């Protein structure tokens, strides 16, 4: 019996000890009329060898293309050691460190992770992670509503330059609590929030302003001006950032003239977590010290034991659902522990210089691809603005068929913006990371050139 160690003799001994003859007697409290028949729709079990063959076939049936899609998930090189260590059984098969004395490894990893994230974000405190970047933004909004006690009516300014999936997920997670999400347009020339468009909210009761950096288009927002404007209105600032980029870009804790943002959150995936079709990733969240009791999720703290030795434990648990139940800061229970363990190892391995190099190289290669593609007739950059690591290009034809053709060349050419941003026409969001060589960029450019000139020929 797969994964069940019992021998026939042991089963009989155990049944005798309990005082029943048949295993099924143990289910006698389930009303008979509710019992189900054999689940014939489910196939019989497979051996490990058979399931290996099945899964190798499934994994092998799709080619691995050159990927130039970013849009919230980024392909970076992950050192071999990262997941080899993270999947050691002692990390992999442990649970939430409720028994701190027997979980010092997990707890110290979380403490180190929190330390690294507060360094990257230049913020006071970090939690142990949330589910992903989008749900972290939802949790950040709920937290801002709790933390901004001056605000009487929960209203959040949400720029249209925030990832459309994030906006939708955040809305789905907060709407039941009567929170109003107000969309802020972007400047069509620059692809960034137009500070002038905020003027109409001056003097109003605004709970928080969300500022993405870089924004969904890869455009750099004028974060200092926006942060100062929000604070002047009595609004909190929620930064939604790619954590890797803060190795070289000004971090949220240093935005504006006075003390930075209130909450920083985002997707932790770029820090050592594979693309893996969408997860598991993790959401990170940092905040100012004064808001720590409003923060959702687990937090590890440093303390001492009976003999005065340093040790680590979960702390501030009275915020959480298992204590406060309906009055908890969130219903969140687990975090994304294993992904955070991998990320901690990744950050330790790369260090400040390594992270800065990954970010800089990604940016450099993005600009290099931009130069190659905009040299093709009819392809141009959409926004006149500084971008980082991603950029929006306009194509002379509808994007979807071109992307489909690019896959024939082994290229996944980017994210088609025309569904989420019809106002941008035939626009494509592309991303390059340090994993792409100049030859890869040449290959993409040649493929696009060929597809566009073929289609011109067909048209004429």
């Amino acid at each position: 019996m797969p994964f069940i160690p019992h021998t026939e003799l042991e089963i009989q001994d155990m049944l005798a000890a309990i005082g029943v003859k048949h295993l099924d007697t143990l289910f006698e409290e389930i009303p008979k009329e509710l019992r189900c028949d054999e689940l014939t729709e489910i196939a019989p079990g497979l051996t490990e060898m058979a399931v290996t063959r099945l899964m190798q076939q499934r994994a092998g049936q799709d080619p691995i293309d050159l990927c130039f899609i970013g849009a919230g998930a980024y392909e970076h090189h992950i050192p071999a050691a990262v997941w080899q260590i993270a999947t050691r059984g002692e990390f992999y098969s442990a649970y939430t460190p409720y028994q701190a004395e027997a979980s010092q490894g997990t707890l110290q990893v979380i403490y180190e992770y929190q330390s690294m994230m507060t360094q990257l974000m230049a913020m006071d405190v970090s939690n142990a992670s949330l589910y992903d970047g989008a749900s972290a933004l939802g949790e950040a909004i709920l937290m801002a509503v709790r933390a901004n006690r001056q605000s009487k009516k929960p209203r959040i300014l949400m720029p249209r330059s925030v990832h459309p999936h994030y906006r939708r997920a955040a809305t789905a997670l907060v709407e039941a609590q009567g929170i109003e999400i107000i969309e802020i347009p972007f400047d069509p020339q620059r692809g960034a929030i137009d500070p002038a468009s905020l003027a109409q909210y001056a003097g109003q009761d605004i709970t928080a302003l969300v500022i993405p950096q870089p924004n969904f288009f890869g455009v750099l927002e004028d974060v200092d001006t926006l942060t100062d404007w929000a604070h002047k209105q009595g609004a909190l600032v929620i930064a939604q950032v790619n954590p890797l980029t803060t190795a070289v870009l000004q971090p949220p804790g240093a935005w504006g003239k006075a003390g930075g943002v209130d909450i920083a959150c985002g997707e932790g995936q770029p820090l050592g977590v594979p693309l893996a079709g969408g997860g598991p990733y993790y959401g990170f969240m940092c905040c100012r010290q004064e808001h720590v009791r409003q923060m959702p999720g687990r937090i590890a703290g440093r303390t001492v034991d009976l003999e005065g030795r340093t040790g680590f434990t979960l702390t501030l648990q009275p915020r959480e659902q298992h204590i406060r139940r309906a009055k908890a800061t969130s219903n969140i229970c687990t975090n994304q522990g294993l992904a955070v363990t991998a990320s901690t190892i990744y950050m330790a391995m790369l260090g400040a210089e390594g992270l800065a190099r990954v970010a800089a190289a990604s940016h450099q290669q993005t600009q290099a691809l931009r130069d190659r593609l905009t040299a093709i007739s009819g392809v141009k950059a959409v926004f006149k603005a500084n971008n980082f690591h991603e950029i929006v290009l306009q194509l002379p034809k509808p994007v979807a068929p071109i992307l489909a053709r690019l896959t024939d060349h082994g290229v996944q050419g980017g994210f088609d913006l025309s569904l989420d941003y019809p106002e941008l026409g035939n626009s494509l969001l592309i991303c390059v990371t340090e994993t792409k060589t100049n030859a890869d960029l040449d290959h993409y450019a040649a493929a696009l050139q060929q597809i566009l000139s073929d289609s011109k020929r067909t048209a004429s």
Partner: protein
Amino acid sequence: MSQSSQHNINPLQTSTQLIFERSQSGRQAWAQAPNEASVMAAEDSSNPALARRPALADLPPHFLRRVSLAMPEVSELDVVRHYTRLSQRNFSVDTHFYPLGSCTMKYNPRACNSLAMQPAFLARHPLAPASRSQGMLSCVYDLQEILRVVTGMAGVSLTPMAGAQGEYAGMAMIRAYHRTRGDLARTEVLVPDAAHGTNPATAAMCGFQVKEIPTGPDGDVDLVALQAAVGPQTAGIMLTNPSTLGIFERNIAEIARIVHKAGGLLYYDGANLNAILGKVRPGDMGFDVVHMNLHKTFSTPHGGGGPGAGPVGVSERLLPFLPTPFVIREGETYRYVTEKERPQSIGRLSAFNGNMGVLLRAYIYARMLGREGMVRVADYATLNANYMLKKLQEAGFDAAYPQRRATHEFSLTLKRNNQETGVRALDFAKRLLDFGYHAPTVYFPLMVPECLLIEPTETESKATLDGFIAAMIAIAKESREDIAHLQAAPYTQPVRRLDEVRAVKELNVRWNPAN
């Protein structure tokens, strides 16, 4: 040298140095730093963040990082050794029996990990075209089908990223259902007092008022109280069955009748699905929506506290509200359903497609179990729990509900032990660590005084259970003979009992470079 430090000649036990404290300025894991054409001189040589890099020359300086970044400066070996050693300061299923009640800490088959981590799966971008993702999508579709059958529901969405998010999705669907029908008066959700804390927290997040329903003396929901509580304000009830007390709710059909008659819906918390896999299905019990914890029942790793996955299954009437995305099959091809095709959906709960890597592991596990293996999970989880309960009762421990059959877990109450010797459930928990066993869940459910909630799972052998039972007996003996020694446990762990009050009062949640 103090007496205590003499115990600790093992470097694994004394090493609490942080990775930051291993730093040497200028050290680097060079194989991992991408080459970059000459980095210009740093304005502050101790701070690489301040370096002017040619690659960033197009960016105005005000966008660039101008504050220090103190990260570890260590070699690759330093990193590998540090985190390998930290891993050894943990209990885990792979190293220890871990009977944490309500968490289903069963063996996580290694094949599930290695097959889910094939490079072709890891390299797949979540927004890659469906035409290039058929292998992965077919696995996910097949898993949806398996979970649909096993729960007896009409449809499944895998997107919730944890049990608590599955709960949220479920309650949001119940809310959407009532609102779509214009029934805005249903603002109240019923939750039994034995429920997990996530249940009332979730109901509150969905904007509902929570009303607690008491448990009767036999452990079943108090039907009289339930009948009195339901009405036109009732949106639904959240139930775990078997309940968190480790017993099967025998009146479930009657509960379903009462709640449905009042116009409410039934939400099934799948925390304890392991107990009934292939025996009885939530859909057949009358539930309208169910979430599953794949990290429990389907053996995906708990990972030190996640990632989990919390798929939801729904009955026919809730189908239009399922969260997106989920996979549909058209002939021989698979694709994600678009939000446009599902106008009544509660929407998306994550940036992408849920915790795909977890879903793959669950799928592989489900395929290895097959239909016959699923029933065995319930059979042997239940056999193990009942065996332990019986043996512990014979040894003088009190079951919280002695008149009831245990399911896959059971609750003991140490109330009498506490009255006799002053021993607490916490003392048992800490002392068990010295015997090499992770503690059961303690002080939950809240209504059982000095509660130990014990869940052995089906993957543990009789010999392991017997060892745990012997440890419990030894600790009970110690509580009568040397309570002071017991109350100061553990003794064999990397640290002794920790000062949790200080952890809150002198909050220290990050390394500070200034110290």
